[in-house]
Structures are given as C-alpha cells and as structure tokens.
C-alpha cells in the first residue's frame, strides 16, 4: 500500500510532465491555444501528483497541501477542458469562457491560500488519511469550488473528446483520431472514477485513477496526432497491349 501512496503519484507526476513537454513542443511548432492550455493543464496534473507523492514520503506540509488542492483538485480538469473548448468551439465562446476560467482560477488561488487548514482532519476521512483530501480544509467556500471546476472540466474535456471521436467514426475517417479521442476521454474520466472510489473508502483509488488517467491521455494524444499507416493494397502490374 505504501508504494501506492508514495512512489505511484511520483510516477503519475513524471508521466504528466513528460506529456506536457510533448504537448508544449507541439505548441511551439504549430501554435494553437488548445495545445498551450493542454500543456498547462498537464503541468497542473504533474504538480498534483508531485504533491501527493511528497505527502506520502514526507508527510504533511502546509504549502504542498495548498498547491495540491489548487492545481490537483481544483484547476487541472478545467484547464485541460478549456483547451478542448479552444479546439472545438466557435468565437467568441473560447474567449469568454477563458476570461471566466482565469477569473475563477484567481479566486481559487485566493481562497486556497487564505484557507484555514487542519491536517488532523485528514485521518477522519474514509481512507484514514493515507491520501490527500480536501477534508483538511476548515474554511467555508473552498471545497465547494472543486465540483464546479470539475464539472466544467469533465463536460468540456470528456464531452469534447467523445464528440470528436463520434464525428470521425460517423464519417469513417481518421481512425487514429477516433481511437485517440476515446483514449483521451477514458483517461480524463479515470481520476474522477478513482476519486469516486476513494470517496467510497477504497484506499488509494484516486492515485491509481490518476496514474491510469495520465497514461491513457498520453497514449490517446500520441495516437490522435500520429496517423496510422494504412495497409497498402498489393501492387497489380499494369497490363499493356
């Protein structure tokens, strides 16, 4: 169990940072706000995993907990989803939602860094404090931000990926993008699935969900951006008179 709450989140973090590197490298080459936002989102994902691993190895730290809650619990899904909004939605929706997300994120920074914490409350949670959770936050109006951001993130990131996959499937084109988007949607749901498991008392379910999520999204992104080599029909020699 210790491995799951210590090393495993660091592995998730490493995968997320490597994924972010590739996304931002693609952004540097091709531009596109969606790539920039996905890259930022995966950096947030990596920060969240790093904080979880830090807590597993070294125990409670006030700053690490705040960073985890801000980036890992509140912002990550919404910023990844915002990337999908820039990719799929028409003007002016991406710009309007970006302003709202930026303002909401600033509000989140203020709330998280001004919140009162009590680490002893972590052990009162269903998973006995082996994982980080919002239970340590005493101040009102902080934990209630999490579902709002995560609902937006899930609808946009997962909804966008499923919708894209379905469009490509319906037209029977770009199979690699269909598969890639399905994997991205599955990966984006994995942490939410793990979080639900954690909420119902399954130890380390969140961390396992996050690792699976990072891996699936990485593979999905690679698949979606790498065309499959189509099987070439056998060459038929030309017949001439």
């Amino acid at each position, binding site marked *: 169990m210790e491995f799951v709450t210590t090393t495993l989140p660091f592995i998730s973090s490493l995968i997320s940072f490597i994924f972010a590197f590739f996304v931002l490298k693609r952004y540097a080459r091709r531009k596109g706000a969606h790539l920039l936002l996905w890259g930022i989102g995966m950096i947030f994902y990596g920060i969240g995993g790093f904080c979880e691993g830090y807590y597993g190895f070294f125990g409670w730290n006030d700053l690490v907990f705040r960073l985890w809650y801000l980036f890992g*619990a509140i912002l990550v899904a919404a910023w990844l989803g915002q990337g999908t909004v820039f990719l799929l939605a028409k003007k002016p929706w991406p710009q309007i939602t970006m302003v709202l997300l930026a303002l909401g994120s600033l509000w989140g920074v203020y709330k998280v860094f001004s919140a009162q914490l009590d680490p002893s409350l972590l052990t009162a949670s269903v998973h006995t404090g082996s994982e980080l*959770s*919002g*239970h340590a936050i005493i101040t009102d109006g902080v*934990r*209630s931000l*999490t*579902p*709002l951001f*995560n*609902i937006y993130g*899930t*609808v946009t990131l*997962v*909804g966008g990926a*499923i919708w894209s*996959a*379905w469009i490509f*499937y319906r037209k*029977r*084109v*770009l*199979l690699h993008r*269909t*598969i890639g988007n*399905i994997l991205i*949607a*599955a990966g984006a*749901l994995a942490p*939410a*699935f793990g*979080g*639900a498991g954690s*909420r119902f008392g399954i130890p380390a379910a969140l961390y396992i969900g996050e690792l699976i999520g990072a891996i699936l999204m990485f593979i999905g992104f690679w698949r979606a951006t790498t065309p*499959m080599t*189509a*099987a070439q*029909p*056998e*060459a*038929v020699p*030309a*017949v*001439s*008179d």
Partner: protein
Amino acid sequence: MTEKRPEKPNNPRGYTPIYEKLIPAAVILLILIAVSMLVLAGGIALGLIGGG
C-alpha cells in the same frame, strides 16, 4: 493500353469490423461513466455528498 486498377479494400479507411463494434460500445460506456461522474459531482456541489 489498359490498366487493371487495384481492387478497393473493404475497409479503405481502417474501420475493420472489430472497430465497427468496439467504437460505439466504447462511446456509450464513456457517456454512461461521464454522466455518473457528473451526477456525483452535482451531488457534491449541492451538498448531498461530502466535498472533495
């Protein structure tokens, strides 16, 4: 001069029968999971379930 054109494969874009079955199933499953997660998150937002 005549030239015999190569036969058109059944799945010119790679959508083999296995993909034809798996993709809709995966999409439906993902939608079901996503809706469940949203209901759960909605329950948290409304205070029906403890926050994260």
